[in-house]
């Protein structure tokens, strides 16, 4: 069980994450939603241990992850929101680097990398430098790198951004299966279809604060809305969507 307890992160005067608490259990995919700049990626970096919170703790199995960060990191798979990769390595070499940094035995690792690349349809590109990859191809490398060591905890920050429709569906199915195996999965995404289909619970963040938490069904009933999209708009959109679009339109047409 992964527990985020009263986590706050400030950058100077800006409080990016404000007293956020929620829990992710095994067998569960927790969707992490919120508008741009609401603090999702910041929370996620805190959960991966890369960023230190200003206040609050993250607990894994009841223990503060900062007490033994390295042991915790070995259980973690992380897909960051931006595809920052070593562009002069080939896809194969990058995955090999990650696998070796994770201390996986080399024969098994190479077999696994080969299979992963071919399942992700990257077979033809495995000896090409990542600098020549398309956006979606880089995303696939990020996903493969997060999964290569069969992690207990999966932290996904907009994992399907850039993936084509098929790859997105494959990924969705994969995540459901991994959750079925008892993995702890936190997934931030702007794709409501992904969230509706795989997430058992969602946490909705707005301006650094949790404004909604629970299963999609619960939230829908609680807010008395027909869909997750409507719940989301109800919770975070301060302005009427139509009116914002109209104002924007008028502004565009001005000159």
């Amino acid at each position, binding site marked *: 069980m992964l527990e985020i307890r009263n986590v706050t992160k400030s950058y100077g005067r800006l409080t990016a994450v404000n007293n956020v608490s929620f829990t992710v259990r095994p067998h569960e995919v927790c969707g992490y939603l919120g508008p741009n700049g609401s603090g999702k990626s910041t929370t996620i970096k805190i959960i991966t241990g890369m960023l230190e919170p200003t206040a609050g703790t993250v607990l894994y199995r009841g223990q503060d992850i900062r007490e033994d960060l390295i042991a915790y990191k070995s259980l973690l798979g992380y897909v960051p929101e931006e595809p920052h990769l070593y562009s002069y390595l080939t896809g194969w070499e990058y995955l090999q*680097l990650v696998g070796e940094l994770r201390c996986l035995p080399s024969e098994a690792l190479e077999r696994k990398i080969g299979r992963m690349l071919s399942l992700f349809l990257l077979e033809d590109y495995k000896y090409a430098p990542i600098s020549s990859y398309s956006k979606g191809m880089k995303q696939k490398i990020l996903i493969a790198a997060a999964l290569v060591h069969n992690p207990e905890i999966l932290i996904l920050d907009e994992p399907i951004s850039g993936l084509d429709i098929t790859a997105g569906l494959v990924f969705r199915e994969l995540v459901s299966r991994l959750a079925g195996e008892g993995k702890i999965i936190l997934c931030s995404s702007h794709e409501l279809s992904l969230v509706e289909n795989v997430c058992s619970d969602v946490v909705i963040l707005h301006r650094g604060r949790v404004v909604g938490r629970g299963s999609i069904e619960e939230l829908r009933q609680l807010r008395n809305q027909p869909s997750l999209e409507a719940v989301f708009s109800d919770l975070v959109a301060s302005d009427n969507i139509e009116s914002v679009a109209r104002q924007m339109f008028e502004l565009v047409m001005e000159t």
Partner: protein
Amino acid sequence: MTFQAEKGQFVRLTRNFFTRFFENDLLSPQADFHATLSQALGLLATPGLFVPLLLLPLLMMDAEAARSWNIKLIFVFFSMLVMGVLSILEWDALMLDHRDQTILMPLPVRPRTIFAAKFAALAVFLVIFSVDVNAGSILLLPPLETQGNMGGLANLARFTVAHAAGTIGASGFTFLLIVSVQGILINTFPPKWFRRISTGIQVISVLGMLAVLFFFPAILEEMPRWKSEGAAMARFFPPMWFVGVSEVLEGTADPAFRSLARIGLCGLGLASASSVAAYAVAYGRYTRASLEGAVDASGATSRGRGMALGALIRGLLRNPLERAVCRFSLQTMLRSPKHRLLLAAYTGTGLALVLEESVALALQSGQAWKPAQEVVMLSLPLVISFFLLSGMRFIFNIPSELSANWIFQVTERREQTDYLAGARASMMLLVVAPVAAVVVIVYGFLFDLETALIHAAYCSLLSLLLVEALVWRLEKLPFTCSYVPGRIPVVMLLTAYWVAFLFYTHVMAFLEHEMLRSRPATVICISVLLSAWCGLRAYRRRAHVKNAAFVFHEEPEPVVCTLNLGG
């Protein structure tokens, strides 16, 4: 589009392109442009101020010496060298890169505006830096030249103009030459090739410039002879052209200088014309290619080479972390253009020293070698390994694609000794082993196989000890932490390196020379070194020399420390 609007775009773009020269991922990403610019200007102006100050005692009270052309040659040469290194470093920024293009292409900016702005930015760069590099000597040398009976404001002005024309002309020539070489390469080769050739050219230029730097004292000594023989030899040394220019402007009657100055002016004219023409033509071609992404795929690897390296590492190293770090260091050293260039600079310095010594030795090869020469002979591989190993250790600090370092952070493990072992292994594979192989071949050819093998063993053991010393502890994983230059005072660092260098090369070569006289001494010496190395390793493992957790981000110190004197 109105002329006014286009002018506005031009000014904006020029400013933008100019700042791009200082975007540099060596520095912390937050580094401020003005701070970087002033640091760069300061750094490049320092030697120009320093050299005249060093020569001051010599030139004070001696206007004759200050006016001599040899002194001018030093400044002209220095001005060309600095400008050369600078333009090589900015090689990639000379043309419009992919990022600029993706931003600019969709905008309604005329290509000619972009071109003009890029060109203007280059011109501004050239003017600012060639003046900056030479400012020190332009300000300091003419007053020394006009002291005593040559005094008078008119003379001072004349000498200042002459000296400025010589040095700035030399800088300008170097820059324009490099721009035209790049232009010609772009026009001649397909884009993919251009990328590869570029790195080669950069490396070779750096090597060449370093070699000339090392031979400069000898050149300075020989030059009077070369000049007097009808200026025939001096013609092949471009700095002399610009010495000619300033001599002629000072009013020399020497026909050799007149002819050199003519060559200089022709050269400058030719370089300007060809750089403008080649740049203009190349610009369009490069822009198209870069838009198609053909130029950017840097570090493309041939499958075979990558595989061979992989197999070698897998065969030699058992531990996965060690393998990962070793492989990553080698891949970065050999593929990242920036790191390759740095490595080349260190290799070049080492090779230039070795070359200088070898030439000196070869000139005496008729006679029997004296012991001192034998010592020099033995020290050559040590010189190379010293530069390469300490160079690698320094290059480890220079980050590569800093934003990608998150993978090292999220996969961090406790076995820090294994990470360090990987760094060591990469030094052994890239330096110690190849140097040993070359030693066996070269010294086997020069002496006999037994001596060669002993020498190789001796050098390798010393190199291994040096590797241990350099990587005893590491606070950063290779290439993964931002770099803040100037943490340790340069003078201190240089002194430490100098002492270490003398000890490692000369003292150790002298000991080896003594050792080679008798077989028992050889056996004892090699065993002592071997046990020292094994002992160090064992101690390191046993004592678990504690390495603090790796840092991945180094904060720059504030550029200006205010003293807070104001109320």
